[in-house]
């Protein structure tokens, strides 16, 4: 009984939410979104009403989340990798065309002076326009130009005072306001000062029949290339739009010298960084585990508690703390040792610092899992070997280590994959820097994931989502390849044992 009531309440909530969301999608004419919303809501209703779909009741929430936030982003990444998606190619073709049209407006020669009253209704701005010839009064906004009866502001609209008019925020709003007017054809009104406006017309028009962008003055038809209109000089007009460019992004990684050099450098360092991080942390962790896991060492529990402190401190804090300690000018370490080592500003030293800090961050983890693995090795094995006359060294090399490797190697692979994409481990310490001459984007310690982050997110060089996604896809294949290879090899190791 309670179950039924609960189910009705739940479905009621879902359906009303969906209804509300659907109305929003309808208003913004997002048909694709609407289709997905209806499909999802229908599935939810079906699953929780039907008596047959027993397992789906448990699986549906996870499945929906997985579809939207894992599978769809993967497909999106794959498709963006084959496109020119970037800040310069962000909008649709129609939007790009109308944007270029508006960029090219000029004042109509001999345009009469329209007298205006600037208005606002809280959110939007509009103009009360008096036609100079007919003296008719219109209300003009971004989208409409309608005649009104009385020469005063219609209800809901308030005129700006002259003082308000010259405020910065209002100036930007009114400065970008273009009111479409019927005569001359294709013209807009643009505010001139507090009480006047002039007619502007664009030299460029978008012909909706032929779907071409044309410059009126010399009838020049803009050709298109890779999602952008091209002018006579061959330069692409901004903004462009999103088109598929095939393998161009992947090709540029191999052939474009501006991309290839930095990419190769970053790629090599990523492998070096991930491999060395795993190796050094494992070596230190294992050594410590072997040394301290000895029955005559007293207070092992307390030693362990202290040794795992670096692992217990949240990683982002440790990285920022180390960034401060290693700071060249004011850094504690240089001051403490009276040294002038450019820890984070010299390409080689920065790499050393990165490895050192990641060793500090990671060795307790390896220490913990190695201790666990050693303790799980049955004591009988080493004792039997001892009876047979094996030396401690031999027991270690021939019995303990091979058994330990079988247990921890999946975790080592996991650790490698984690380091390979350890964005914070690099970005919070060095920011990927110091800069290197061959690239404005990739620094000396950048790994692939921080490189893609900079390509896509950091302002100042036109965010290149397409290339960034292409590199993400490449990272995926590399990590997947390494993982598959090592898992098959460790399985072979287990079979041997």
């Amino acid at each position: 009984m309670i179950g039924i009531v609960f189910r009705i309440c739940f479905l009621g909530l879902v359906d009303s939410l969906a209804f509300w969301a659907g109305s929003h999608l309808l208003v913004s004419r997002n048909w694709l979104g609407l289709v997905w919303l209806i499909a999802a809501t229908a599935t939810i209703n079906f699953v929780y009403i039907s008596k047959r779909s027993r397992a789906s009741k448990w699986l549906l929430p996870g499945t929906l989340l997985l579809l939207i936030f894992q599978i769809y982003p993967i497909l999106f990444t794959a498709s963006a990798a084959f496109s020119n998606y970037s800040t310069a190619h962000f909008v649709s073709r129609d939007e790009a065309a109308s944007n270029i049209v508006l960029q090219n407006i000029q004042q109509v020669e001999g345009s009469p002076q329209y007298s205006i009253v600037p208005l606002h209704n809280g959110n939007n701005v509009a103009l009360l326009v008096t036609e100079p010839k007919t003296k008719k009064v219109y209300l003009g906004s971004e989208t409409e130009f309608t005649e009104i009866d009385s020469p005063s502001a219609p209800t809901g609209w308030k005129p700006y005072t002259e003082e308000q008019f010259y405020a910065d925020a209002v100036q930007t709003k009114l400065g970008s306001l273009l009111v479409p007017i019927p005569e001359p054809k294709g013209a807009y009104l643009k505010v001139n000062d507090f009480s006047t406006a002039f007619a502007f017309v664009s030299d460029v028009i978008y012909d909706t029949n032929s779907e071409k962008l044309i410059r009126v003055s010399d009838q020049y038809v803009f050709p298109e290339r890779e999602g952008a209109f091209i002018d006579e000089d061959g330069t692409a007009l901004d903004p462009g739009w999103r088109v598929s460019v095939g393998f161009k992004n992947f090709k540029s990684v191999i052939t474009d010298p501006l991309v290839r050099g930095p990419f190769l450098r970053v790629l090599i360092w990523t492998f070096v960084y991930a491999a060395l991080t795993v190796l050094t942390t494992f070596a230190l962790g294992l050594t410590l585990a072997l040394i301290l896991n000895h029955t005559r060492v007293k207070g092992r529990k307390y030693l362990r508690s202290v040794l795992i402190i670096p692992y217990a401190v949240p990683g982002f804090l440790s990285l920022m703390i180390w960034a401060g300690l290693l700071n060249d000018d004011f850094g504690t370490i240089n001051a403490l040792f009276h040294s002038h080592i450019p820890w984070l500003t010299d390409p080689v030293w920065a790499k050393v610092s990165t490895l050192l800090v990641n060793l500090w961050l990671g060795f307790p983890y390896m220490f913990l899992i190695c201790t666990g693995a050693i303790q799980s090795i049955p004591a009988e094995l080493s004792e039997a070997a001892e009876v047979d006359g094996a030396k401690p060294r031999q027991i270690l090399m021939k019995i303990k280590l091979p058994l330990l490797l079988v247990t921890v190697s999946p975790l080592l692979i996991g650790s490698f994959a984690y380091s390979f994409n350890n964005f914070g481990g690099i970005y919070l310490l060095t920011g990927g820097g110091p800069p290197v001459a061959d690239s404005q984007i990739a620094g000396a310690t950048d790994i692939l994931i921080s490189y893609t982050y900079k390509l896509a997110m950091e302002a100042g060089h036109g965010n290149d989502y397409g290339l960034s996604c292409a590199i993400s896809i490449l990272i995926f294949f590399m990590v997947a390849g390494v993982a598959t290879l090592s898992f098959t090899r460790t399985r072979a190791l287990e079979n041997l044992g």
Partner: protein
Amino acid sequence: MTTETISTSKAGSPRKRKNKLQRGTVWWRYIVAAITILFAISPVVYIIIAACNPEGTLTTFNFTIHSFGLDNFRFLFGRHDLSSDVTYQAYPYMLWYRNSLMVSLLAATLQVIVATAAAYAFSRLHFKGRRLSLGALLLLQLFPSVLAFVSLFLIMQKIGAVFPFVGPGTWAGLILIYLGGSLGINTYLLKGFFDTIPRELDEAATVDGASANQIFMKIILPLAAPMLAVVMLLAFIGLMNEFLFASIFLTRSDQMTLAVGLRSLINGRYAQNWGIFSAGAILAGLPMVIMFQLLQRFIVEGLAAGSVKG
């Protein structure tokens, strides 16, 4: 001593053998431990000194009782300006703290709930495509959500254009992304654990007329509660540490999490803000370190099962 050990290992009972002391000198082991401990805790000790020294700069390490003070901590809670007699906060540190806790706790809880439901179905119910979807789930883990951060950002931007409350700059959007991100691995971990709960228990319950819901609520859930707590704890720790998505999504200062906020406080201003940052780092890190020490055993268990702390 040496001969004694050998003789016991030859003739002693298994119980005696377990308790025997290993051979060999020990003192050098303490030295190695001491050196490593020095390496491990000196940054932490240094941060504590810097935080308790109001004049603290990056290069201060003379720690005397005269230089002790808690001004850096006071600054984080709001500073009293004497000239205008108002308390103002230069950085909304407490807000960052609250945001971090809220986002991580909510996301970790929801993650565990959704993953538990799915893991139960995979472990106990028979349905078509069970093996196939399990395999697909594992395969998906090869493409971590970090790799799709650009797509997730662009997708959320699109969703945000229609529904601003889940777009960039909102917690809801960030939580949704966190939810999707580690669902697969948690489901897998929990499924493995549910498999170890004897099937005889639910079979007996089925005979007695219990439904799938009842078996889940009355048998599986109570038995799995400790494991659920461990998974949730690890998810919580991981989310407290998350930087990439939080930094892309939360750009307004009052919305930031600790990771993003503290970075905005310190980045490029190491010299000025070091003391305050140290105090903030201690307040943020101490609870985590204490929790880690108290729950060490469970965390190590979770690590052995394959989770990696962020």
